[in-house]
């Protein structure tokens, strides 16, 4: 294509740059952390509900509202007209995945904060006394709050999945326009949620650390990572057999100087292969070695960030 007069810039821009990639990571992280925190809470304390909250539960309750708040801030900053973001809250179009996401987040975000208030009830009593009326009113509705936790788990799943559907609704971009993408996003969100919960739990909530829980989560994480590799393979194989523009885009991605390296070394090497290697060597037979667990968690987190950047950028750059 050749321009006879005027610029061709408007056709080749990155319309969704780094804040969106980072938001997709943070939304996944928030949803993943909350899901993992709730899973530990459901599975590990069924008989002993009065036990002191586990470090990984606390970590999840802390990360989840902070990550989603930061993510939403990035999302608003990236708008061409940031001050008009309120229109997204009052005007709905139910065929748009973005509207569905807004509705999920509208319920999810306050509940994530309330969940943090419940988990940190004791700390709030000590340091944030002005929040005590809220925690007291939650305690009065304890039975109801238990039910809300299941709702919250489902909402976290919706938030994790919607970020995938948001991209897969774009038919122009072959890398995004696959039904497998939401699945990939949910699984990687779950995996990075485990990693973040373990990391923050080990670093900040050492007093409540339960080695059995860490082992339980490491096993879960390994399964999630093992699942991510075939999902990624399916994504690319699907693009290959779709032919046409998908095949051209796939070839462009894997022959791209930067994005192919980002995938092989960042997404696959750091995010998926390295944690498996650590799990098979240093952490063999579920040995408890904090240093390696931290490296393992960092690798998973970096890998998931790279995955989001790879999907967002390579998808937009390599169109047929």
């Amino acid at each position, binding site marked *: *294509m*050749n*321009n*006879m*007069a*005027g*610029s*061709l*810039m*408007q*056709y080749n821009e990155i*319309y*969704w740059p780094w804040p969106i990639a980072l938001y997709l990571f943070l939304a996944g992280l928030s949803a993943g952390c909350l899901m993992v925190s709730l899973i530990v809470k459901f599975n590990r304390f069924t008989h002993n509900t009065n036990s002191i909250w586990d470090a990984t539960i606390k970590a999840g309750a802390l990360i989840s509202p902070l990550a989603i708040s930061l993510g939403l801030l990035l999302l608003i900053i990236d*708008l*061409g*007209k940031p001050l*008009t*973001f309120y*229109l*997204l809250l009052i*005007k*709905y*179009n139910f*065929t*748009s*995945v*973005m*509207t569905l996401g*807004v509705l999920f987040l509208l319920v999810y975000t306050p509940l994530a904060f309330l969940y943090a208030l419940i988990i940190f009830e004791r700390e709030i009593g000590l340091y944030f006394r002005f929040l005590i009326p809220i925690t007291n009113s939650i305690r009065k509705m304890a039975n109801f709050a238990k039910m809300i936790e299941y709702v919250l788990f489902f909402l976290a799943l919706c938030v994790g999945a919607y970020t995938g559907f948001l991209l897969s*609704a*774009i*038919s*122009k*971009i072959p890398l995004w326009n696959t039904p497998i993408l939401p699945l990939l996003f949910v699984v990687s969100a779950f995996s990075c949620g485990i990693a973040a919960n373990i990391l923050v739990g080990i670093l900040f909530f050492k007093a409540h650390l339960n080695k059995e829980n860490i082992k339980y989560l490491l096993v879960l994480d390994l399964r999630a990572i093992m699942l991510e590799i075939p999902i990624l393979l399916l994504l690319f194989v699907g693009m290959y057999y779709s032919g046409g523009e998908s095949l051209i885009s796939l070839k462009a991605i894997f022959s791209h100087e930067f994005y192919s390296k980002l995938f092989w070394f960042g997404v696959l090497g750091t995010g998926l292969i390295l944690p498996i290697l650590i799990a098979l060597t240093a952490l063999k037979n579920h040995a408890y070695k904090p240093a390696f667990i931290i490296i393992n968690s960092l690798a998973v987190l970096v890998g998931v960030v790279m995955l989001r950047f790879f999907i967002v950028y390579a998808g*937009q750059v390599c169109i047929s």
Partner: protein
Amino acid sequence: MKKFVMIHDENLCIGCEACSVACKNENQIPSGVFRVQVHAKMKGVFPNLQTDFTRASCVMCEDSPCVSVCPTGASFKLANGITLIDENLCVSCKYCILACPYNARFLNPITKAIDKCTFCYPNRVSDGLTPACVSVCPTDALIFGDINDNNSEVNKVLASKSVEYPKAHLGTKPKLGFIKNTKGGRYE
């Protein structure tokens, strides 16, 4: 009910960009961005070369991906087939730019809203005029009119020539058709 259709006859187009300039003038489009451009695509092997002039603008889909993804309803369709953007409702999330298979949308650097071809509906067509690009085309390569009016020029062209719709396999049902170039830049 009127249904507006535009046809670009690539055999008649000489790539003079008068349509692009007229559009910028009429709709006050900032420099550097375009609602409509004519792109030249050269193909073949020397000496058997052929240059196609193709129009790049909104094709006014019947089932517009941009309208279905817009989270605030700022992108909307009129009953006469024209897709418009309500600048005041647009939050500029750029979701529609990504969703548009025809790369017809852009961020207006002055209003900060998303902008695109309107077939000049608000400023000309609603007053009974033709779009600015159609009115200036020196070779009459652009044909515009109401498809429901049996005597309109577009209906005559549609009846006598083979008109292709871009990316028809997507099922978006465009209202901008093309008569494909068979001869190259005839007026060159």
